[in-house]
């Protein structure tokens, strides 16, 4: 029957056997459990082991210059638990002694300055929820379908509540020349000493020097004890293990601004300094590599986001984009943060193609993959914000597909 779970199919009217999971009281109903603070810092249930961050085989050659993807197919809401936050390292991650960590600010400033963590954490602070997306997210799919699940198509995406001091506060304290100094260089303390150029407009607006994510200090994998948070801008600019900021009058042409995170166009040029993560969305359940248990009702759910601001609307199609219905947006809907959407769907058992399409507050509409390709070709690697298609086969199995 429509809506019957595979594990609990029922013949209407027929006498039903008692479920042993109910009539035989389980051990936890007839026994004494474990004490409080058995784990001073807890972990997920043993039954949740399948939800892990994972590498995509063959994507990179060495794991210390690689990516691990967040398991979006099994996640909920907009907050990414810190243990599942995606990773991107260029020269491996470290667990740095925070009492020995320093932040230097130099360049076009009245006085080059140094801060300890004690000092930074005394400054006026803000807490804000923002998404972070790698510029290469969905990058394997510019040409053709390459990976099976939303973990690998879209899993370089996370969203946390960050706490830190605004970069504008620090620039002001050092007497930065924000007129001549149109750029800020951010530099990490790891082996790669990652450098990225930040526009002064962002620097004076909402860029943060953050030490905390989701209520606790940053995780080592995410830059403990200090990282740059650049709302709306691709993850590579969110420099981890942040050690230095330099105010300058020119961009810096760092390795990751000249050799990578440059978008190859059909005419053979590379677009440089393409930092913004444009309006995008994806259905996370049901999604590629999942199998629907039965026909009937499903709550189709997913995520939408835009580097330009708030999400205004999300539409969902189940017929490959011919007809669309507007989804419910869950609260809160915040600027440059993930937004969770949900929409009703009754699956009649015939093949279907599921898509979602986000629109942000600037009126930017997420394009179809082919609209994107018509302008940018198929070899860019970066900034693929095209509409994702999931094909539901008659068997209930869901496949990653691209439409004509």
């Amino acid at each position, binding site marked *: 029957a429509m809506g019957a779970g595979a594990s609990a199919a029922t013949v209407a009217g027929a006498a039903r056997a008692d479920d042993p999971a109910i009539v035989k009281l389980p051990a936890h109903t007839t026994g004494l459990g474990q004490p409080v603070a058995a784990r001073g810092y807890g972990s997920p249930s043993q039954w949740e082991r399948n939800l892990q961050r*994972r590498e995509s085989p063959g994507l990179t050659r060495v794991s210390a210059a690689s990516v691990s993807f967040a398991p979006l197919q099994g996640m909920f809401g907009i907050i990414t638990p810190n243990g599942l936050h995606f990773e991107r390292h260029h020269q491996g991650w470290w667990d740095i002694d925070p009492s020995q960590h320093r932040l230097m600010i130099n360049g076009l400033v009245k006085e080059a300055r140094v801060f300890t963590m004690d000092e930074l954490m005394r400054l006026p602070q803000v807490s804000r929820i923002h998404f972070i997306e790698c510029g290469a997210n969905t990058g394997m799919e510019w040409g053709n379908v390459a990976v*099976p699940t939303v973990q690998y198509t879209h899993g370089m995406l996370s969203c946390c509540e960050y706490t830190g001091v605004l970069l504008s506060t620090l620039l002001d304290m050092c007497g930065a020349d924000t007129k001549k100094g149109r750029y800020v260089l951010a530099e990490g303390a790891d082996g790669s000493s990652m450098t990225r150029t930040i526009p002064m407009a962002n620097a004076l607006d909402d860029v943060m020097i953050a030490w905390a994510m989701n209520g606790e200090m940053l995780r080592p994998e995410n830059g403990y004890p200090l990282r740059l948070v650049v709302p709306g801008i691709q993850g590579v600019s969110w420099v981890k293990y942040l050690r230095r900021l330099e105010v300058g009058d020119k961009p810096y042409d760092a390795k990751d601004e000249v050799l990578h995170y440059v978008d190859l166009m059909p005419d053979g040029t590379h677009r440089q*300094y393409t930092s913004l993560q444009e309006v995008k969305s994806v259905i996370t359940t049901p999604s590629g590599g999942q199998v629907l248990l039965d026909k009937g009702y499903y709550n189709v759910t997913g995520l939408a986001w835009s*580097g330009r601001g708030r999400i205004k609307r999300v539409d969902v199609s189940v017929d*490959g984009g011919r007809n669309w219905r507007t989804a419910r947006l869950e609260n809160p809907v915040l600027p440059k943060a993930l937004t969770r959407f949900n929409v009703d769907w009754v699956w009649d058992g015939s093949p279907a193609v599921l898509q979602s399409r986000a629109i942000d507050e600037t009126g930017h509409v997420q394009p179809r993959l082919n609209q994107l390709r018509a302008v940018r070709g198929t070899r860019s690697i970066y900034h693929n914000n095209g509409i994702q298609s999931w094909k539901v086969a008659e068997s209930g199995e869901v496949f990653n597909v691209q439409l004509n």
Partner: protein
Amino acid sequence: QSQAKTQAAPAPKPWADIGRAATPNEVKAWDIDVRADFKGLPPGSGSVDLGMEVWEAKCASCHGTFGESNEVFTPIVGGTTKEDIKTGRVANLLRPDYPQRTTLMKLSQVSTLWDYINRAMPWNAPKSLTTEEVYAVTAYILHLGEILPADFVLSDKNIAEVQKLLPNRNGKAFFEPLWQVASKPDVQGDACMKDCKTGSDIRSILPEFARDAHGNLVAQNRVVGPVRGADTARPPLE
């Protein structure tokens, strides 16, 4: 985003003197970036000859003797031509069938190469090279790419001339709409709701042999919920 409710602070910026001035040595120790206009480049020089020694001792194991290896990373050298050196545009970047994009195919600023080697290479011992070694190995890579002759000595004096030889020096475009929120996007979708025109037949799907390439998906999905992971150790369900 901040609230209008903000009260007047008890004094103007009472946090102003938190932190301290950096000493000259401290700035020197950390301010290592080298910009396209060579601001930040320390004086010095290094020969292709010395570069070969450094390369073979400290780089070739990962990047290959000729910078051609893709064992640990995409090749550094290859794909550029004498013609490219003239035009400053790498022709192979126009070929969709060209197998890979090497470092030298994309490199538009020689400062980038110098800066990155200086800060990050060798990968397992970053910042261990002397300034001379960085000049030298940079020169050697450009020599492997047939951009510099075997007897070249790269220095802060001649590096601006070397810049003018880079095969892809004219290959970059600044594109404001992906830099500035306020700019107009180059690709706009459409918000059509009913009977929209769209090619809806399937153009691309994961090939059968790749079904299990990411491991068994049943083990990458929850044991309960509205769906299960597909058992990719078996063929797709009928």
